[in-house]
């Protein structure tokens, strides 16, 4: 086993997470290799720094404050749910209005279109002479209307 491999395993070796044949190989390498032993010492010193590290604790009343936060959050959620519900009712009431408008538009559009196409069909199918007569008749009718 070479130094590179042993160095990679030193952490697990110190954590006692290695056993069996691998453990024996590492131990026999450490007996022979001063550099890896030095590395092991350094690592052990670092691990000791961590194990000595002060542990912080929560302040008194942590749970009480947490419960208050949760309850406040639940209240807000309830209010939001209520708002959503109210919005839902309003939406349900208001949705028919635009729906009816859209429906009316959809129905009336083809009617307008049909009328326009009938007019253009009549005017389009008449010849020049007929149009002249028809417009003359219309003018005469306008004159009569004015006289009356």
């Amino acid at each position, binding site marked *: 086993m070479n130094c590179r491999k042993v*160095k*990679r395993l030193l*952490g*697990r070796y110190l*954590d006692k*997470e290695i056993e069996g044949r691998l453990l024996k190989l590492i131990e026999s390498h450490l007996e022979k290799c001063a550099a890896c032993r*030095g590395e092991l*010492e*350094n*690592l052990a*010193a*670092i*691990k000791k*720094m*961590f*194990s*000595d*590290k*002060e*542990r*912080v*604790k*929560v*302040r008194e009343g*942590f*749970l009480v*404050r*947490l*419960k208050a*936060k*949760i309850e406040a*959050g639940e209240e807000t959620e309830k209010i939001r749910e209520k708002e959503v519900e109210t919005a839902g009712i309003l939406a349900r009431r208001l949705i028919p209005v635009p729906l009816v408008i859209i429906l009316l538009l959809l129905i009336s559009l083809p009617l307008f279109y049909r009328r326009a196409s009938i007019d253009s069909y009549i005017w389009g199918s008449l010849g020049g002479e007929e149009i002249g007569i028809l417009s003359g008749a219309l003018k005469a009718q306008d004159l009569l209307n004015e006289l009356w």
Partner: protein
Amino acid sequence: MREERDDNILIDKFLAGEREGFEMLVRKYQNRVVNIIYSLGSQIHNAEDIAQEVFIKVYKNLRFFRRGAKFSTWLYRITVNTAYTFLKREQKYVALEYLGTKESTGKENVALDNLEYKERQALVKKALSMLPFKYRTVLVLRDIEGLSYRDIAKTLGCFVGTVESRLFRAHSLFKRIVFSLVKKEDIL
């Protein structure tokens, strides 16, 4: 194993409508959670706020907790993710000048032994905060909280081999930062 069973009993209690189950879970894990957050680089006064955020997430999502999984692993995952969200704004990166040489002079350990307890604590905190977050996390979970390699892998959602290599890299980076800091302080 027994701890796992106890946690499951408390979860069942909570899901059955008894808030006491949740409260007991909080009491059991509150100090561990706050210590992880503090070790990951949070200031002491913020650590408790982040811990509360963690437990609120647990409270809201406990019904989605997958049985068969370990509660503590699930909780630590939420803790690490929440801490990351809070800390990423003030993320510090390793300044190259701190890394110094890879070679050890052999005097570093003696210098570390000579440090006062408070100095050593400050040194660990500073060096930890200079590590990239992914290395900081494995160091905190393994060397401070004492989680097994398998539990760390489950917490972080990676392979045991990844944990192993991250720890190796984390230790060597941490060592270089500590020794550089010690040298800068003219302790050697």
